[in-house]
């Protein structure tokens, strides 16, 4: 019997089965694709975080401990691939005599490195000039001492006579922060900046020059073991972090107090795991609604044939079949569409993976691949059960055979509508929105250095409640208009239906549940497309803003610390082909009380043209207003929010900063007046800084020294122009272009590359919009072939039939799109608010991708129009089997 039934289904209901299986395939493909994205992006984050670390661990031998024993224990620790001893000695300063003048520095650090250090830890030391071997000095030290390779430098030794060494090369230490960290100290106790004066020596030179300090001042000598740890880590950054941290703790336990581990690898993974959580959150916020929508769509497609199925099942029961047997047949149908849809979905996902992510696998590792494949497939089966099997079982519970045979029942408002569920959900969404909008709210909590990380999953409630609430409200409105607003509907569709308007409105009114459902489905699809596209566009815009904020402009030319380059150097930069304009930006350090903060001197008239200043960067006025205040009153200063709070500042308050005088190099007091708050500024750090008028600073300090030049290339050929500038300026300045900054900050907060996800989601959103509109209407109309056949037999002309069908289509399109656009806009606002932690800086306004949205609306409308016209065409001359059924 089962086989006969299946065969019959395949022969007679092929279209409906294919449509249902397609809905399941879309849901499975979407889930599997997003799963692939999630797994792949997590693995990428781990790999990126690990590759950004050169020295994975710095194990510092405790005072009095045997460094050889520490080295030996470290070499034998799990996961350690290489370990080398590095010695540190503190010096009172360096002295050099060049060009007839003697320069001295303050305290510095001398490192003793083994011969193979640069081979084991490539990238830790970058040679700028001279030889890579021998005694090397850091760039800033060379600059302070005015030395070059071949010059001699005297190193002071506490309690011992100074020694003189010949400089072989000048180097840059890109990872100076971690190299000179205070091992074992918490992040807040780490030094604010690495030492200014650094000298590197071969271990043998160190042994003969600095090691003798052990006899007089052993406290000035320390030994660290620098470790390369395996980078074969769990793909999830959180797991990798736990694994690496545990290994470090294990080593510390082994060392039993003789050494502390400075875990650079874990510190890097610590940041990545937060990004990983955000990617998981993005998946849930942006991906799940699509999969749920595909599931609802499938249920709607299956539901379009519900009346017919109910009648067939009622017939089977009247012919003596038991409820269990009928349910079994429905289960077989569910299994068939579930399995076929699931397999097709996985195939589609593999193809999408290949196209969008460059891999057809469903995850980074075999385990995640398997779990995503099985998970997505199981969801497909669940949708089949919900769409096909559960309605059958529910029908048996709630209806009689006679009732089941009825085609149209008296409409009664659903229970949720009577209880006002939509209003309750929207109120809940409003409450959640208010909570998540509050300052200090954080979606992802990943305290630095703590293994436990958490996502505030409550935040999901806001968008979820809004999505469902708006959908149900749209349902209620459509239901009410079609039911109570029948004259209104008749008037609206009169241009299409002529004098059939009242009849058509009456028919629509009695099917208002079906029509309202189609309206809601279109609304959900449009809303999904609109909110996803808007969110992604806003994200992309903000990532660009972030890159621009970090780099300052298309290209930033940052002067080496200690150099004194005036604004005139802009001429040399402007002469490079491709440079449109150059804006000098002063960068100084200023003391406010005991705090040292960055001070940026800007030219108010031209700064806005050189870089993008968003209103969101400022508080207490727009960007133009606050920069204008700097021009109007040159002693105005913009300060950070934190400083305003710390010093209880009110507009106009006097702030005395201590700045270094250009001539005397001594700190002098310069008065400023507080004029507003700057939260962000191009090239400035996140925490606290000042913005002031460049001319005022220059006059007060007697120095026009520029910290950086912001170069505008009009967004064209930035990489090529940057290369040309590097060639022209040499090692004197650091040239960074926005492209490399974009990829460099890719490993920070905005590390989740949404490009693949966006392509997949927007593609699916289009498919869902078309399917929601076209397929649901087409299947609904197909179910009513009989109605159209009767109308045709009674003399309906092609035009009249077309009018009947199109009037329904227009209601679905107009209602669905209006509700979808409103819902999409609200959802976008909600998503951007809830996911505000993803954005850095927060967006000023939503970026709406109009072309994509217009395409979505057009596709949905076209699909609906095509479905309606095809239905009308088919009804013009009823099929023989329909006539036979009359």
């Amino acid at each position: 019997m089962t086989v006969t039934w299946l065969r019959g289904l395949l022969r007679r209901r092929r279209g409906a089965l294919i449509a249902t299986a397609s809905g399941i395939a879309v849901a499975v493909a979407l889930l599997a694709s997003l799963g692939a994205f999630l797994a792949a992006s997590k693995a990428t984050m781990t790999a990126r975080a690990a590759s950004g670390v050169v020295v994975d661990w710095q194990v510092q031998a405790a005072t009095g401990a045997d460094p050889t024993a520490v080295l030996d224990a470290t070499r034998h620790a799990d996961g350690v691939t290489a370990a080398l001893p590095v010695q540190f000695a503190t010096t009172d300063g360096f002295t050099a005599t060049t060009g007839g003048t003697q320069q001295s520095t303050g305290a510095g650090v001398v490192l003793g490195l083994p011969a193979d250090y640069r081979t084991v830890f490539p990238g830790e030391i970058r040679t700028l000039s001279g030889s890579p071997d021998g005694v090397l000095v850091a760039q800033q030290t060379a600059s302070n001492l005015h030395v070059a390779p071949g010059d001699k430098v005297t190193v002071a030794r506490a309690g011992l006579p100074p020694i003189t060494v010949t400089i072989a090369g000048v180097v840059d230490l890109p990872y100076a922060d971690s190299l000179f960290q205070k091992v074992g100290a918490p992040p807040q106790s780490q030094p604010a900046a690495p030492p200014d004066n650094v000298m590197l020596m071969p271990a043998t030179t160190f042994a003969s020059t600095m090691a003798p300090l052990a006899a007089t001042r052993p406290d000035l000598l320390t030994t660290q073991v620098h470790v390369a740890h395996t980078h074969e880590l769990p793909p999830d950054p959180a797991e990798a972090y736990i694994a690496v941290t545990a290994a470090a703790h294990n080593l510390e336990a082994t060392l039993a107090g003789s050494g502390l581990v400075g875990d650079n690898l874990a510190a890097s993974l610590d940041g990545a795991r937060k990004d990983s959580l955000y990617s998981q959150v993005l998946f849930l916020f942006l991906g799940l609604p699509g999969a749920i929508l595909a599931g609802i769509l499938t249920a709607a497609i299956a539901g379009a044939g519900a009346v017919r199925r109910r009648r067939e099942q009622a017939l089977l029961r009247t012919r003596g079949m038991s409820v269990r047997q009928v349910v079994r047949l429905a289960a077989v149908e569910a299994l068939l569409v579930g399995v076929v849809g699931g397999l097709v979905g996985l195939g589609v996902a593999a193809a999408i993976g290949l196209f969008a992510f460059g891999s057809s696998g469903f995850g980074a590792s075999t385990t995640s691949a398997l779990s995503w494949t099985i998970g997505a497939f199981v969801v497909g089966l669940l949708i089949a059960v919900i769409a096909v099997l559960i309605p059958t079982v529910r029908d048996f519970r709630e209806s009689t055979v006679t009732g089941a045979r009825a085609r149209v029942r008296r409409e009664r408002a659903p229970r949720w509508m009577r209880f006002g569920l939509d209003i309750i959900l929207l109120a809940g969404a409003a409450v959640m929105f208010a909570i998540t909008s509050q300052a200090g709210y954080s979606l992802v909590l990943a305290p630095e250095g703590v293994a436990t990380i958490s996502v505030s999953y409550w935040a999901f409630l806001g968008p979820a409640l809004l999505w469902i609430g708006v959908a149900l409200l749209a349902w209620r409105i459509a239901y009410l208009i079609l039911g109570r607003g029948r004259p209104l509907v008749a008037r609206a569709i009169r241009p299409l239906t002529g004098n059939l308007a009242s009849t058509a409105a009456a028919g629509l009114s009695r099917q208002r549940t079906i029509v309202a459902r189609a309206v809601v489905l279109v609304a959900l699809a449009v809303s999904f497309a609109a909110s996803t596209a808007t969110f992604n566009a806003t994200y992309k815009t903000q990532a660009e803003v972030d890159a621009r904020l970090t780099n300052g402009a298309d290209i930033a030319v940052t002067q080496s610390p200690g150099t004194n380059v005036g604004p005139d150097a802009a001429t040399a930069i402007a002469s490079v082909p491709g440079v449109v304009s150059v804006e000098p930006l002063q960068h100084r350090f200023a003391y406010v009380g005991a705090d040292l903060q960055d001070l940026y001197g800007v030219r108010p008239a031209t700064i806005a043209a050189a870089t993008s200043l968003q209103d969101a960067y400022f508080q207490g006025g727009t960007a133009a207003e606050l920069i204008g205040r700097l021009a109007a009153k040159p002693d105005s200063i913009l300060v950070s929010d934190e400083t305003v709070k710390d010093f209880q500042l009110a507009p106009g308050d006097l702030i005395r900063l201590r700045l270094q005088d250009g001539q005397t190099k001594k700190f002098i007091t310069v008065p400023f007046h507080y004029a507003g708050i700057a939260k962000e500024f191009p090239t400035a750090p996140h925490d606290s800084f000042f913005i002031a008028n460049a001319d005022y600073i220059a006059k007060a300090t007697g120095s026009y020294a520029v910290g950086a030049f912001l170069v505008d290339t009009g967004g064209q050929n930035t990489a090529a122009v940057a290369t040309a500038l590097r060639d022209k300026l040499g090692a004197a300045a650091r040239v960074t272009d926005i492209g490399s900054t974009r990829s460099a900050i890719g490993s920070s907060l905005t590390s989740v590359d949404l490009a693949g996800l966006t392509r997949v989601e927007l593609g699916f959103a289009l498919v869902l919009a078309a399917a929601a509109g076209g397929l649901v209407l087409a299947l609904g109309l197909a179910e009513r072939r009989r109605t159209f056949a009767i109308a045709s037999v009674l003399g309906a002309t092609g035009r009249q039939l077309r009018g009947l069908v199109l009037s329904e289509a227009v209601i679905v399109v107009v209602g669905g799109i209006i509700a979808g656009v409103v819902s999409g806009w609200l959802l976008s606002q909600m998503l951007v608010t809830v996911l505000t932690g993803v954005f850095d800086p927060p967006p000023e306004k939503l970026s709406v991708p109009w072309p994509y949205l217009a395409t979505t609306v057009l596709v949905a409308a076209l699909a609906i129009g095509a479905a309606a016209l095809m239905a009308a065409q088919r009804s013009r001359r009823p099929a023989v089997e329909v006539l036979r059924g009359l």
Partner: protein
Amino acid sequence: MNAQAGTPAPATTHTSDRAAASGALIEMADVALTYGSGPTAVVAVHGATCQVPAGARLAITGPSGSGKSTLLHLMAGLERATAGRVSWPALGEDPLGRPGLVGVVFQGPSLIPTLDVVENVALPLVLAGTAARVAHELAMDALDTLEIDDLASKLPDELSGGQAQRVAIARAMATRPVLILADEPTGQLDRATGAHVIDVLLGAADLLGAAVVISTHDPAVSDRLSSRWRIRDGVLSTTDLSTSRNDLGESR
């Protein structure tokens, strides 16, 4: 074989001229309808030639699958002949082109489930261009005539089989047709209800002066009509069975 229902006529090669002259409602000339093609083709009607005059009371009888419904569909213009010619001399053109001139009553439930009874009855009038309000009044008149005006606000799924068929008859007569074609109108009804439906149908036709053609395999129905044709395996025999039986009776 050529024939004219109600008034048996000799075979003639100029049937159309004569039909037009005599006001024939339907004229079929060697009409065939074949479903499909090749070896699986099914010939539903084959070589049917006949005329249905105004005011006819005609039963088309035959076993299930003999082609009764197909013949009625051809007469109503719902299906197109694959051979021969069907014309409606007194109507001027295809009945589908001029809605309301031919009323059709089907065997099964043929009311539109989303419209209530009065809307269903008014539908052909509205489709023919009558203003909605006028159509509603005429539909109520039709229901009143058949004494089922109390059903006006009910939905089709709230009606019994007999009630639904009476509403279908009311719908067929609402446009005051000149011809009512009924395809086994009592096929899904019990005998008593069926008899009542036929009473209503014939009463309505009398009232309108319309011709009635009913396909049926129920002798109780066919006996109520003055002319009876027979169809078997798609071949129509227009020899009036009522006359033949009388002839046979007389010769005995």
